[in-house]
């Protein structure tokens, strides 16, 4: 997939060889080198953007992404490489932004309301509701916060289990187990959920 390829585009390293950006950052951090903030932005912005899409569905994802980076950029001089990896640090900020957002929501739509919204029929809403993202929101609405967070970090932000474990405080093996169980459950209900949403009319 183009997005995965972009996230793992190779970087030349001194002495030859090519590594992914994530590894290059790790190597820079370990070597005490100054971080390439532009490259980090290019690599992390899509992850943060998709993290919010997976985590919060219909929220203003651009606004939340912007807030995350603004907070991070203000504090980047204080980023302590010895305390946490950059991605961990950034997604801690993103997680807090998500929590702030959830706290400001005045009402929480129960799962049944997702179908009720279908009553407002416009072509745009039909297409939106038929989208995979809407389907995911429908299926994850009743999941515990922990599972929703793991799905967003794994498939939205495309973080590996080790980073997710560092972020959430759950052991790496437990992260894998929870994700496996949650994905199985989602997959089993994926096509059932399609019938709950209105499909857009074909051309």
């Amino acid at each position, binding site marked *: 997939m*183009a*997005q995965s390829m*972009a996230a793992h585009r190779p970087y030349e390293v001194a002495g030859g060889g090519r590594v992914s950006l994530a590894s290059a950052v790790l190597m820079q951090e370990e070597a005490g080198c100054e971080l390439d903030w532009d490259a980090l*932005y290019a690599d992390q912005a899509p992850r943060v*953007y998709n993290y919010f899409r997976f985590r919060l569905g219909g929220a203003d994802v651009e606004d939340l992404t912007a807030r995350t980076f*603004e907070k991070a950029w203000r504090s980047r*001089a204080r980023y302590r490489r010895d305390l946490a990896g950059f991605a961990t640090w950034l997604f801690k900020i993103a997680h807090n932004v998500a929590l702030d957002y959830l706290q400001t929501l005045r009402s929480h739509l129960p799962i049944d309301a997702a179908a009720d919204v279908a009553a407002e029929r416009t072509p745009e809403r039909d297409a939106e509701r038929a989208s995979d*993202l809407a389907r995911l929101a429908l299926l994850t609405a009743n999941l515990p916060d922990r599972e929703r967070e793991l799905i967003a970090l794994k*498939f939205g932000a495309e973080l590996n289990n080790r980073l997710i474990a560092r972020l959430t405080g759950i052991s790496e093996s437990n992260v894998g187990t929870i994700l496996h169980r949650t994905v199985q459950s989602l997959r089993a209900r994926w096509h059932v959920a399609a019938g709950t949403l209105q499909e857009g009319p*074909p051309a």
Partner: protein
Amino acid sequence: MNEDFLHRIRVRPPPEFLARLKSKLDRQPLHPPPRLARSVLAAVLAGASALALAALALRGELANLHWSGWSGGAGGSGTSVTSNSASSTPSEVLEQGWLRNPWAPQARQSSAAGSRHRPAGNGMPSVVAIPPANPVAPNASVAHYNSGAVVLAPNGAGRLRIAATLHDQSHMDRTVKELVAGGYRREPQIVVAPVDRVFEQLCADDSISLATATRRMSPSENQRCLRSAAGPMVEGKLGYQAIALVRSRLYGALSLSPRDIYLALAARIPSPANPSATIPNPYVSWNEVNPALPPDRILVLGPAVASEEGQTFLTLFIEAGCNTFPSIAALQDGTTHDELCRSLREDGVYVTAPPGHAALEERLQMLPTAVGVLPYPALQLTVNLEASSIDGVRPAQQSIEDGSYSGSRTLYLYVNKRRARGMDGLLTFLIYFFGTPETNGAFVPLSRAESTDVRSTVFSSLGYQPP
């Protein structure tokens, strides 16, 4: 474990959002954290000072002290530069006397009256008036921005007037909005004009300060500038616009020409029996337009015609194909020419596509013989679509840059050197213009190195010190 259904949900953020956010982030300076030793020393000194003051107070001498160092009086600058605010707007930035924008000129000595030298905060360079220095020799690297936008000279002292074609109007609007929001007092005026008219006005006299154009100035137009009061122009390349015509990989791409596209989609076309007359477009399938094409029904999904991308599509493909007919290309009447070359069929052959490349990709997979009109940058985000060649050339970064792909064009900027010398507002406008990201989906930016080189050369050619 099959997780494709989740991976599929990921999308690429809109490029314009990423560029806009990056631009905002770049304005935030990096302030190093205070070193621990320095912090400790500062704390110790503060504590000692507090103890000393307390001791003096006990001795009854506090009332005779002047806290000038704390009140920002005679000894201090009195200016608190809170430059690291997340909510810094361009106006706050300008007010604090520095610009995070890397294109801001460096502080320098100026003997010119009206210098706006401001006290620098935190070591950042100040914005100063343009010195009356000898301009750097011309030959700025050329970035062609063919949007037909013209910045007219102000009436009276320092007011900019800008003209733009539809292709660049929104970019100019946003630049002006940012400028005004940043505290710029004399709002530039925007005037919309076709690109030919833009060059006419630019070279007629020295009333125009800046123009953006969707083609390069011709030698004769340049001569007109040099002979008139307008004088020499600085030319810079701004980027490209490119559009691809795509189909589902299931049926593969077509090999098209602008003439094919025009004959397939124009509302009226030259009569095959009598090319000097026009008829309502009768074609139903591609092989009727060109026997070398397959017998698929003509169906094209594209942007709304009135949109910037729609207008770009009309210019690059429909109008280009229309002008392959000499009798139409020779038309003097612009209205008739536009009616023939910029009007599409309304019989369902051209349909407004659903918004977003993902929706278009999905729709084209359901209609594998249909053709989609897609901005070139969005093509990179698709996996199931194939781009058609136009005149034998497929869209790619190289073919766009070298101009061999005829579904693209280069965009240019022109700045009047004589106007630049006496107008601080023009410098500010240029800084904002370069800092306001282009949101036309068909815009293909220059490489970072080339962009840096262009901006640096434009600024230096105008007598501004480049960053």
